[in-house]
Each structure stands twice: as C-alpha cells, then as structure tokens.
C-alpha cells in the first residue's frame, strides 16, 4: 500500500474532464452508448463524444425533464444512455422523472452530474446542490457513485456502462489533485482503503478524499494513526469495510461535500448504529445553503476543509 505522503497532490485536474475522457473512450468502445445533454456540452466535457459520434449524441436544449424521459425510452431499445447536466438539474429538478420513468421502471440510464456541491463556486447556492446524494440514494435500485479525482471518474464512467441498471455519477467543476493511479479498474461497491491505521477511521467521498489525505498526514504528526477509506460508492455501500475498520479503530469520521442530512455520513451512521455502535463525527454542510465565492473559501466557511476533518478526528477519538 502506497504511503499517503507519496501521493502527488500537486497535479490538479477536474473530475468532469475525467468523465469526458471516459465518455470519449466509451464512444469508441461501445456503440450502444449514446449521450444526451441539456445545453451544457462544453461544461460536461461531452464535446469529444459529440464530435466523434454525432448520430449518437442528442442535445435536448434546456429541458432536463424531457431528457430523462428520452433517455428512458432509448434504453428500451438496448441503448445505454448517458445524460449530462449540472448535478442540481440532474436530480432535484427532475426527481419525479427519474423516480417513475427510470428507477421504478428499471431503466439502464446513467445520470452523469457535474458541478456538484459548493465547490461549483461563484454561481452561488441556486446551482450548488448539496442534497443530491440523499435524493438519489433513497431511490430503490439506484447506484450512487462519487469518485474522488480525474482518474477515478474516468474509470467509474467506464465501469457504469458495464453495470445493468440506473446509476447516478456525481463529479465537479474545480481542479483537484489527481492522485489515484491511472487505469485502475473501478469496482462498484468496493471501498478503497488508502491507508491502514489504528486510532481513527476517516471515510470520505469525492473531493473530500484528498482533503482527508492532507488531514491524515497532519494527524500522523501528532502520532495519530488514521485508517483512510475512499468510499466512492455510496450505494450499494461497502458496509463490510466500514464495520471492519470501526472494529479496529473504534472511532469514525465521515467527510463529504453534501448536506449532513441524507449523505454518506448518514449511511455510515446507519451502518454503525445497527451493527457496531461507534463514536462518529460528520464533516458535512450542516443544514445550510451555500453562497457565491471561491471553492476553498466556501469549503472553509461551510466547515468541510482539512482542519475540520482533523478536529472531527480528534473529537471522535476523545469520545472512545
């Protein structure tokens, strides 16, 4: 296992470009893959696919509800539709369409959502959805994936095409460290243990994974041994990895760019309280909308930065 210090956090890339690269690769590899976009082709990095496969790319205009329905219809014919728009418009705006026409109807649609969370930045709270993981994981049969960096987002994009059933894939706009090894195949529902430790477990998803790496390195300086789990799949949740780690460390921290209600932390809490009650601290946005600002300013203000993970870890350990 690679030491956390050896991860190169200096090379930054946006996860949406990882999605774009994955979709481009799928375009060449699988002629059943079709893509739909709601007037955000450039923002979703779907340009390459659109250019390479004009007959398999459908711009739906600013009409997301219809896009979800058309995707459901295409899947009936054996196509594998990938829809692309911002996370807010991929979920909250079209929840009933996803619920009835996709999830309840067991349609093989891949809902790919960019610009998730507060790190969308300057556009402000109208676009900064922090409830999407909760909404999506509540839907029966929905798979929910939140990869941590460019490489993993690309691999997750490839993996979901092979998975039969509806999937929600969440990624973002800002450039973040691209530290996972290239071309590591993505296993849906199997957590990545980035570091084994004995004092506290940190379970993170999305961009909070590299923040957790920073936190774990800092905590190690104080002699605290962190077990770090990249929980890229929120549903189905790798409960075995959570329980095994909690058994070892006896203290857990969850970290996510999402509301405390309904997100990864909630899922971890449910697992722990049902099977192995363990002190848990949640690093998440606490029942609040975001606002305009730079991503790092927002992460600091809304309590989801490295220092918040460190503080949560110390608190969890003190509660043992």
């Amino acid at each position: 296992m690679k030491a956390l210090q050896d991860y190169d956090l200096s090379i930054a890339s946006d996860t949406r470009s990882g999605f774009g690269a994955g979709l481009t690769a799928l375009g060449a590899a699988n002629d059943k893959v079709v893509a739909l976009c709601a007037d955000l082709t450039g923002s979703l990095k779907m340009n390459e696919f659109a250019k390479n496969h004009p007959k398999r790319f459908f711009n739906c205009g600013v009409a997301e509800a219809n896009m979800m329905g058309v995707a459901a219809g295409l899947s009936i014919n054996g196509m594998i539709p990938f829809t692309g728009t911002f996370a807010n418009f991929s979920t909250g705006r079209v929840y009933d369409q996803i619920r009835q026409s996709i999830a309840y109807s067991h349609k093989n649609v891949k809902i790919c959502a960019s610009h998730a969370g507060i790190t969308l930045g300057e556009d402000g709270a109208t676009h900064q959805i922090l409830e999407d993981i909760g909404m999506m994981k509540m839907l029966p049969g929905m798979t929910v994936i939140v990869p941590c960096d460019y490489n993993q987002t690309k691999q997750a994009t490839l993996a979901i095409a092979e998975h039969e059933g509806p999937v929600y894939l969440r990624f973002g706009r800002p450039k973040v460290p691209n530290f996972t090894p290239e071309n590591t195949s993505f296993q849906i529902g199997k957590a990545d243990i980035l570091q084994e430790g004995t004092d506290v477990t940190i379970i993170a998803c999305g961009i909070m994974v590299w923040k957790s790496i920073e936190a774990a390195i800092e905590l190690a300086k104080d002699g605290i041994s962190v077990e770090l789990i990249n929980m890229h799949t929120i549903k189905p949740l790798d409960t075995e990895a959570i329980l095994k780690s909690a058994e070892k460390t006896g203290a857990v921290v969850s970290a996510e760019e999402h509301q405390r209600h309904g997100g990864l932390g909630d899922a971890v809490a449910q697992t722990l309280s049902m099977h192995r009650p363990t002190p848990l601290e949640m690093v998440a946005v606490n029942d609040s909308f975001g606002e305009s600002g730079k991503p790092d300013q927002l992460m600091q203000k809304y309590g989801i930065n490295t220092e918040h993970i460190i503080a949560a870890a110390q608190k969890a350990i003190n509660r043992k």
Partner: protein
Amino acid sequence: MASIDEMKKVCSQVRRDIIRMTHLVNSGHPGGSLGCTEFMVALYWEIMDHNPAFNMSGENEDIFFLSNGHISPVFYSVLARSGYFPVDELKTFRKIDSRLQGHPATHEHLPGVRVASGSLGQGLSVAVGAALGKKQNNDSKLVYSLHGDGELQEGQNWEAFMFAAHHNIDNIIATIDRNDAQIDGRTKDVMDLGDLRQKVESFGWKTIDVADGNDLQSVIDGLQKAKAACGQGKPIAIILNTKMGYGVDFMHDKYQWHGKATNEEQTADALGQLEETLGDY
C-alpha cells in the same frame, strides 16, 4: 385481421371489464378508460404489428406507451384480451400481490408494459426516446402513445414536442384523448388548452383530427392516415375527440366519472347496457 363487427364486440367486452374491474375494488378510473376503448381496440386488433409474446425491447414490432396511466383498466383489458396475459388475471386489479397495479408498472413484469406511468406528462418523452432508439437501430416499426388532454398541462410534454420535431422523429404517432374533462371539471374551465391543434402544429408536428373518437371506423381511418404520414420528417399527433364514460348512458361525457367506481346498482345498470360478447373473466 378482425372485422369491424368483431372489434365492436371486443369493445363491448372491454367496457364490461372496465366496469367490473373498478367496481370490484371500488377504485380506479373508468371514465377515460371507457372513452378510449375504440382507440385501444383499434390499435391492438388492427393497427399495430405487435407480439403478445412480450419482450421489453419491442425490436421489429410496433410498440405502445400509455402516458395517462390512470386509464389502466382499458389498457389491462386490451392487453389481456389480445393475449398478453390470462384474462382471469383482470380480477386481481389493484389488489395486493397483483401485477395489475393501480397505474401501469414494469416492476411486477406485466407483459405489455414498457415503462411506469401515472405521474402525468412523462410518457411522451419516453415514447419519443423509444422512437429515436428505433431509428438508431434501423428498426422501421412505429411507436404509438396515448395522452390525456388535461395531461398536456404538464410542461414536460411541450419539451418533448419540441425535441421530437427538432430531431425529425417521424416514426411516432402520439394520440391525445381530447375529452375536455379532467378531475376538477371541464378542461377549458380548469386550465384551457386553447387551440390544441394550432399549438401542436406550431411545435412542428403534423396533426390529424378524428372528429368522433368513439366511432371505430373513424378511429381506424385516422390511425391509417397517421401511419401513411410517417417517415416524412415530422412527428404525428392525432387529436382524438372522445366522450368520457362513452357506452354507459349515465356516465356519458361526465367528468365526475374520471376516477370513481360504480356502486352495485350503477354496475348492474352499466352492464345491462354492455353486451357480454367474449365472456366475462
């Protein structure tokens, strides 16, 4: 291929099924079901090239989507009577452990249903997507769909109208049940749709008007005309003028029968007006 007389007999039996199914569970939507009976029978007995040995993809066959899912009684009766599942199963409608859910669903794997519907306004998008899929697969068969007129108050329909015209999806025939009735009253009073034909045409669709959607021959003629108009670059909409509750005198054109089952006395009265032609289940 059935004769008009044979199909009229099917219509009468389907109407009996609708009344009996909804009466048994004292719930469901007989009004629109009765109004769309000729359309559904024409579709499944005359117009569509379809296979009751159901497969989800519907490859190389015509396929149908019911968007106004609340008229499930007519859908289920027509599916059962045309061989998709045993007619006897109609008696499980809306009961626990049934495949015949209150609104159509794929979850219980009922043959003939390709998407859930009931939350209104979603079916046109799905049908348009399926039609696009057929084009992608070079499948020359057609996609049919049915929508309530009140349902067109949902904005998603207009997104779908735009999309289909923009992408030249000319292998879809979407039929609008223009009965001018919805739960709360006459459609023109609840939320006026105005000149529906003009609206739909202005979205780039070709429209075909069926003046009497409860006259079987008129319905067949309208559908044949629509079929002939496919493949010419434009999606097709049929505006089917029907009467809610058609076939039962006390229900005729009364919006109050949108979602109410008949009581004992009313059931006997209704069944007295509808000949048992193919045998009750």
